[in-house]
């Protein structure tokens, strides 16, 4: 694909991702030419933008010929069927947690779709995420297992996720995934957040005829930023749209978010999240209250360093070092380091395909490489 076409495709996808945001400057309809359509549709599906593209198409902001509209609707129907089945499963999980007396908070997809967007169909999701108190994480895993879910990743050592991890993904017999969280983020930032406070920053939402707790608007913005910056190598445009969309909600307490960011050392993360939104969509995509909040953030050099370790350098083992430093207590540090350096054979086999010494040697390349780089 040549650069000119790529730019046009990127521009079309970016405009679809920002369709309907309050404050959008007036723009002509998003034009697509037939040659570009497969690339645009591919990006729309990748970034989970079928809902926004369909809404834009229905409103005339994305004029499509009948065959392209039909293709888009086919993908959007698949995404919505998935969302409905996930919500159906979430109702079962919520009921089971209630019986087991496990407090739980619905994160991301279903909550953001229902409260953040003008129509939940604008916001597809591919799994459901549920936050539980850390001391109930093991019990919640047992309940999910009872419901037929199985863990998708093997812990390096027993209870590693329950002690040090963000959570664990579980897949049901229907192939749909429930991500069980005990923290909002992996690594140091997850350790620094006071999750008792997060678990109290909630409000209720009705889903499938039963009440659930969701994060309140302030905590929703916080989590959207954490997810976009720390959730993977590059945020999807939907993750950036979530930040912009949730920032328009009137009940966001920006002063409280600033206080959390200071106390939990999240200023660099939030700064980067809002910068990504501005770079992706333009300055207009954030309301003035958010831009003012963004300007008030003064991340410390340490926060910036830890952010680099947890984002661009995470696959070089830097996040593990940063996590080790952030953990409280010698015993916790020793357990964490021990689990990473001497993980169980099943973990090694799942990661390297070999449970023998060759698997361990491959595993040790990461920390050894990281130490070598530091000593230079």
């Amino acid at each position, binding site marked *: 694909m040549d650069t000119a076409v790529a730019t046009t495709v990127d521009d079309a996808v970016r405009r679809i991702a920002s369709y309907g945001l309050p404050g959008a400057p007036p723009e002509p309809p998003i034009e697509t030419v037939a040659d570009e359509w497969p690339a645009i549709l591919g990006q729309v599906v990748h970034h989970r933008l079928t809902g926004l593209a*369909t809404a834009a*198409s*229905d409103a005339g902001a994305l004029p499509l010929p009948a065959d392209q*509209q039909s293709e888009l*609707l086919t993908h*959007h*129907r698949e995404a*919505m*069927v998935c*969302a*409905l*089945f996930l*919500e*159906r499963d979430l*109702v*079962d999980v919520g009921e089971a947690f209630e019986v087991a007396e496990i407090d739980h908070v619905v994160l991301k997809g279903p909550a953001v779709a229902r409260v953040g967007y003008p*129509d*939940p*169909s604008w916001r597809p999701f591919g799994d459901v995420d549920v936050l539980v108190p850390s001391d109930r994480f093991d019990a919640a895993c047992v309940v999910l297992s009872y419901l037929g879910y199985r863990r998708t990743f093997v812990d390096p050592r027993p209870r590693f996720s329950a002690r040090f991890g963000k959570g664990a993904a579980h897949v049901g017999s229907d192939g749909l995934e429930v991500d069980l969280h005990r923290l909002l983020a992996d690594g140091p930032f997850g350790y620094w957040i006071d999750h008792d406070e997060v678990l109290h920053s909630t409000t209720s939402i*009705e*889903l*499938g*005829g*039963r009440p659930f707790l969701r994060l309140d608007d302030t905590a929703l913005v916080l989590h959207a930023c954490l997810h976009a910056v720390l959730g993977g190598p590059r945020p999807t445009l939907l993750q950036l749209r979530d930040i912009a969309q949730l920032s328009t909600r009137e009940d966001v307490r920006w002063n409280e978010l600033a206080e959390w960011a200071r106390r939990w050392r999240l200023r660099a993360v939030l700064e980067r999240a809002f910068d990504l939104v501005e770079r992706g969509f333009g300055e207009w995509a954030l309301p003035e209250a958010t831009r003012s909040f963004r300007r008030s953030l003064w991340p410390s050099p340490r926060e910036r360093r830890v952010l680099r370790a947890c984002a661009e350098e995470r696959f070089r083992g830097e996040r593990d070092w940063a996590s080790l430093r952030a953990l409280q207590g010698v015993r916790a540090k020793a357990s964490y380091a021990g689990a990473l350096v001497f993980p169980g054979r099943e973990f090694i086999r799942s990661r390297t395909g070999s449970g023998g010494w060759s698997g361990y040697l491959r595993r040790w390349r990461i920390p050894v490489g990281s130490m070598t780089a530091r000593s230079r």
Partner: protein
Amino acid sequence: MSSRSYRRAPDVLWRNVGADVILTRPKTETIAELSESGAEVWRLLEHQSTARDVAARFEGFSHAAAEIEAGVKALLDDLVWRGYCSRDDR
């Protein structure tokens, strides 16, 4: 017949897909799909309504009012039977 009022079942899960609507409920394996006018009826059920109230929103269509009301009622009764709606006698 029009004294009966209908509303969406509280546990129904649904989404717009373009002009259509898809629906499901907890503990079920099926997805129902309402296309175009059926989907429009569903959207009009945001508040409890009689078949006549809903049918009135379709005035101007080429069919007679009584015919539209009968069609709307048949759809709503089917949705009740499938558990997506509930019906109250006023």
